[in-house]
């Protein structure tokens, strides 16, 4: 009897506990989220940007066709698309849009808006920059049989096309806005996202309020948000610690994590994951002497990535040594193979001796240049300091020039630099995305080295069409070998993501990319 009673009590307790836990996880409505953005976007246009600063600013105002399901990453789910079908030959993609979606200005969303958006990305008008032009170059035509149906017909197979439709950069714009001014989205906001634009105070913050007509019923949970620009890491940490902001969704360094944990104890939540992001060295191949492969190769060979990884991972978000694909992901080149490629040798004395010889052969034994870098403490400054040190060891004198995001991007995009710390900001591990940065400049505006290499372009195209996984991997390896032997640009190290959030902040999901999950639709405050 007693046993039975005990069992009943335990069962009742378990049910009560479970109910309580479930209740604790039930999203609460209302409240305003204030979070930190550690860089200020130079403009509002998702299509023309490669920095998270634009997405953390703009994503809450926009929708995309599909989006990554962060709970089941890398699976995708619908956003504006209610449903979709893919033809067995991968040559046709048909999307059915949610009915009754409205832009923030009240204009109904139709398939024409989706078509105008994708046309802008794959075939940008004059004076419009589209870094993802190469990715969508395989689209032959876009058809809009009715207001809620969009059909993409492909020129050639792209095995990762469905993931590309989920790219967070593909914000859907209104066709009428683009018709009035192709650069409308750079300076104005009109989306279909969970929040409507309130204000952007330069140097201070961006804010938005709940979109009452959001097409996903019941969302967003928040009444509004405010993204505060905290360019100084110390200011950001103080704001998180003091509760002025409830999180920073890009990532912090190990030391910053330790400081927050020591100061805040169980009030702070720390999530960690490897990152689909790397810093790379880019040489402007249109400027002398960086048009000479010997000079570029010498500079890459002087970098001790393996040693740097051990040291820099203690003080920065830089961690893994990798090739063009994220280390540890299925298509990544294993370390044993990487070591055979220029720039990845373990015998640094030998590599540096060879590098000095290459510089002497190229006629620049006392090379001097300016290294352009972004004025972001983490991890751009450690990377810059590291590179300057590495190049000094082969007698190269470097002036380290750090500037804010806007002038830095302007210099890199206009080719007004010699050598730069660039970044490859991916949102998934697919090779078509990772390799696109290294294509010839006329195919990929992301290629800041401004190189033209038709052999690389061919290898890329062949790998995109290849359905045999083994042959595909072989083509990726051949592509990577060619990139590093020509030394146009090369990853320095891959990042490790550490995200701090207050425990009252709920519904935000960690992923390997800081570009994902920035729309804040499902975020809520447990207070």
């Amino acid at each position, binding site marked *: 009897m007693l046993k039975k009673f005990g069992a009943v009590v335990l069962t009742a307790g378990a049910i009560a506990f479970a109910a309580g836990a479930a209740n604790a996880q039930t999203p609460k409505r209302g409240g305003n989220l204030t979070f930190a953005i550690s860089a200020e976007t130079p403009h509002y246009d998702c299509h023309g940007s490669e920095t998270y600063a634009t997405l953390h600013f703009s994503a809450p105002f926009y929708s995309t066709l599909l989006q990554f399901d962060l709970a089941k990453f890398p699976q995708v789910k619908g956003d504006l698309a209610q449903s979709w079908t893919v033809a067995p030959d991968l040559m046709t993609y048909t999307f059915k849009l949610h009915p009754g979606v409205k832009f923030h200005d009240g204009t109904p969303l139709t398939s024409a808006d989706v078509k105008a958006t994708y046309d802008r990305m794959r075939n940008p008008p004059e004076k419009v920059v589209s870094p993802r032009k190469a990715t969508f170059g395989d689209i032959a035509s876009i058809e809009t049989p009715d207001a809620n149906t969009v059909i993409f017909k492909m020129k050639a197979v792209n095995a990762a096309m469905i993931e590309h439709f989920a790219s967070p950069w593909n914000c859907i714009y209104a066709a009428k806005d683009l018709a009035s001014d192709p650069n409308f989205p750079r300076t104005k906001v009109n989306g279909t996202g969970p929040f409507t634009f309130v204000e952007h105070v330069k140097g201070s913050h961006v804010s938005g309020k709940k979109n009452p007509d959001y097409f996903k019923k019941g969302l967003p949970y928040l009444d509004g948000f405010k993204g505060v620009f905290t360019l100084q890491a110390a200011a950001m940490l103080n704001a998180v610690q003091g509760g002025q902001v409830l999180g920073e969704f890009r990532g912090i360094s190990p030391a*910053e994590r330790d400081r927050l944990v020591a100061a805040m104890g169980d009030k702070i939540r720390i999530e960690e994951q490897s990152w689909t992001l790397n810093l790379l060295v880019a040489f402007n191949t249109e400027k002398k002497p960086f048009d000479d492969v010997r000079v570029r190769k010498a500079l890459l060979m002087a970098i001790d990535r393996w040693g740097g990884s051990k040291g820099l991972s203690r003080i920065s978000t830089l961690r893994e040594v990798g090739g063009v694909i994220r280390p540890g992901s299925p298509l990544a080149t294993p370390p044993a193979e990487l070591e055979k490629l220029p720039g990845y040798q373990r015998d640094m004395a030998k590599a540096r001796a060879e590098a000095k010889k290459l510089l002497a052969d190229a006629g620049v034994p006392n090379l001097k240049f300016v290294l352009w870098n972004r004025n972001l403490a983490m991890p751009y400054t450690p990377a810059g300091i590291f590179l*300057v*040190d590495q190049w000094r060891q082969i007698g190269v004198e470097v002036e*380290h020039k750090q500037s804010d995001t806007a002038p830095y991007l302007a210099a890199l995009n206009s080719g007004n630099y010699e050598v730069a710390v660039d970044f490859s900001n991916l949102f998934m591990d697919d090779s078509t995305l990772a390799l696109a940065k290294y294509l010839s400049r006329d195919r990929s505006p992301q290629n800041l080295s401004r190189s033209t290499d038709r052999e690389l372009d061919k290898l890329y195209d062949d790998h995109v069409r290849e359905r045999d996984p083994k042959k595909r991997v072989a083509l990726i390896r051949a592509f990577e070998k060619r990139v590093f032997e020509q030394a146009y640009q090369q990853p320095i190290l891959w990042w490790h993501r550490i995200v701090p959030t207050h425990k009252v902040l709920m519904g935000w999901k960690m992923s390997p990319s800081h570009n994902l999950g920035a729309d804040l639709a499902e975020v809520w405050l447990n207070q």
Partner: protein
Amino acid sequence: MTLALETPAVIRQPRGPVIEFCRQQPLGAVSFFIICAMMFAGIFSEWVAPYDPLSIDFASILAAPSWEHWCGTDAYGRDICSRLIFGSRTALVIGFTSSFVGSSLGAILGIASAYFGGRVDNIIQRIMDILLAFPLIVLALVVVAALRKFVLGGVDVNLIFAIAIPIIPRVARVVRAAALSVRVMPYVDAARAAGYSNTRIIFRHMAPNVVAPYLIMLTAFIAQAILAEASLSFLGLGVTEPTAAWGLMLSGNAADFYREAPWMIIFPGAAISLAVFAFNLFGDSLRDFLDPRFKV
């Protein structure tokens, strides 16, 4: 009645100004010694510093002070002592140049303002009033943000101007006051009567007579300029990594690691304090030594 013979007065042998300064101003002498040590370290950094200040050593990250690294190492394993020694060069070059440029321009404007008087004086002084309305660091921040960087010979010329501009009105005001009393001296009237040009009168006859306040302001503002450079570097607007600079050593990684490696902030902080203290004290002592009103 006999007259007592008076003991003949001891006639002091004239001593050199340096010895006289040390005798009259012992604290000033100490500060002068510190300044000389700084200058020596700055000029001969390559020979004095035990390590290359830019050389990364990941095996020695955040090493505590020891015989090997007297002031410890930073987050990159760089020797802090070597970076302090090289940092004194940055501090002195920017501090001295900014102060010299600012004080010299201020002195010229101050003398011209006093000499011409009237409308010229009014215009110059109102402009000075506007500049004086801003604290030194705030004005330097505005100027450095507006001018961006212009590196010449490894030195950011615009940073020097950013620090020099706020110094100008402060020196101009003091020098003008001194020049006003010089202007009414007979020799200035005589020079004017002799038909000398205004430029000649200002530079040959008035400027040498306001050298004392000029020198005092110059030395005093070196300290302020060093502090401004350190502050701007701390705020990310001065020199950039990996240049060895005291203010820069206090920012960046130092903010992350000061709990586990307090030497990363103690030594650069002490260097800044010592340099500022030395230049301020030396300026005060120089004023006391040169100004006859302070001689009893």
